[in-house]
């Protein structure tokens, strides 16, 4: 049994987590750039962070036989300062050719503000220009429904093809619209917010497996780096086939991520 965790923030996790994930069957991960829990004081902080994502973490993961990939961006929580965000965006082209960079992400919205939307649009334009895959963060809790719709509208004002965009953190009230508009959809398995493994299994039973994946989004907050194998166990205990379980936790991520030309589990 092997699996891919296509969204996890290993910069916030200990090496013990790499070990436990490897023992549970994890062979590859992808790590989107995100908010560190505080605002960086300069774009130089992002330069160092991008080095960590493209150099330090791949080395740390490789000690446990896990292939590490990443996504680069300025996250929406630090996008309110447009000038600062543009400084960070200007760093991305220099890192985009690194072997483990799969695209632009996790871009999106947080509080659905005008400046967040402006910076989202500028990063979508960068993805268009550099012909990159896109990983999208949708807002939390009460802001998710509106934000998801604003994000899809913004993407549809570009030439980006929906099948090269993954919209993450879907729940019961957003998953159908995301899939119907042709995007890939990610379900994040969190203990208190987003989806539990049980609810993710329900969504799979209601909506099928096409263009759908699961991830832990493990980070510095309440989260579980073993959420993906726990959801696999939940599906198995309900009597689902190993084929379905592998589709949702291995083959679907592999299919989407391989469009980058850089994704590898070897």
């Amino acid at each position: 049994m092997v699996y891919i965790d296509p969204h996890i923030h290993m910069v916030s996790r200990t090496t013990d987590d790499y070990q436990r994930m490897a023992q549970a069957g994890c062979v590859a991960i992808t790590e989107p750039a995100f908010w560190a829990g505080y605002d960086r004081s300069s774009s130089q902080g992002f330069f160092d962070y991008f080095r960590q994502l493209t150099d330090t973490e791949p080395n740390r993961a490789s000690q446990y036989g896990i292939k590490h990939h990443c996504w680069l961006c300025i996250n929406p929580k630090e996008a309110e300062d447009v000038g600062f965000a543009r400084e960070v965006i200007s760093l991305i082209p220099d890192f985009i050719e690194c072997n483990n960079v799969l695209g632009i992400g996790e871009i999106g919205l947080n509080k659905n503000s005008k400046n967040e939307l402006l910076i989202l649009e500028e990063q979508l334009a960068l993805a268009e220009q550099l012909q990159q895959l896109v990983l999208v963060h949708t807002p939390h809790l009460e802001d998710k429904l509106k934000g998801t719709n604003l994000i899809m509208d913004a993407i549809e004002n570009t030439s980006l093809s929906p099948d090269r965009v993954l919209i993450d953190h879907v729940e019961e009230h957003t998953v159908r619209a995301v899939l119907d508009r042709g995007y890939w959809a990610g379900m994040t398995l969190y203990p208190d917010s987003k989806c539990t493994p049980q609810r993710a299994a329900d969504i799979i039973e209601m909506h099928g497996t096409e263009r759908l994946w699961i991830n832990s989004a493990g980070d510095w907050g309440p989260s579980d780096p073993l959420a993906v194998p726990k959801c696999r166990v939940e599906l198995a205990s309900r009597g689902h086939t190993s084929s379905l379980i592998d589709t949702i936790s291995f083959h679907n991520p592999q299919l989407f991520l391989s469009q980058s030309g850089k994704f590898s589990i070897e």
Partner: protein
Amino acid sequence: MTQQEIIDRYFLEHRAKILDIAAFLDRIDRCNEDETDFRVEALHRCIAELQTDSEGRTERLLLLLSDHSSGPIESAGTKGASGAQPPHS
């Protein structure tokens, strides 16, 4: 899974969760304060929705807890979310 299998497997877990909600509301009542909170009011609306007997309760609860306005807001005054739509926002 059959209905019986689902109940056998998940009942105790959800019995505990509904008791947690009851204990949470009792804890608030013990404060003996008159002020209401939009989040607790939203929770009461969700509890009422749970009394309906048609499938799709999870989605309907999420919609009850969502911001239904359409355009972007002027600026993000905070980074966090409340879990329910604040009044007058």
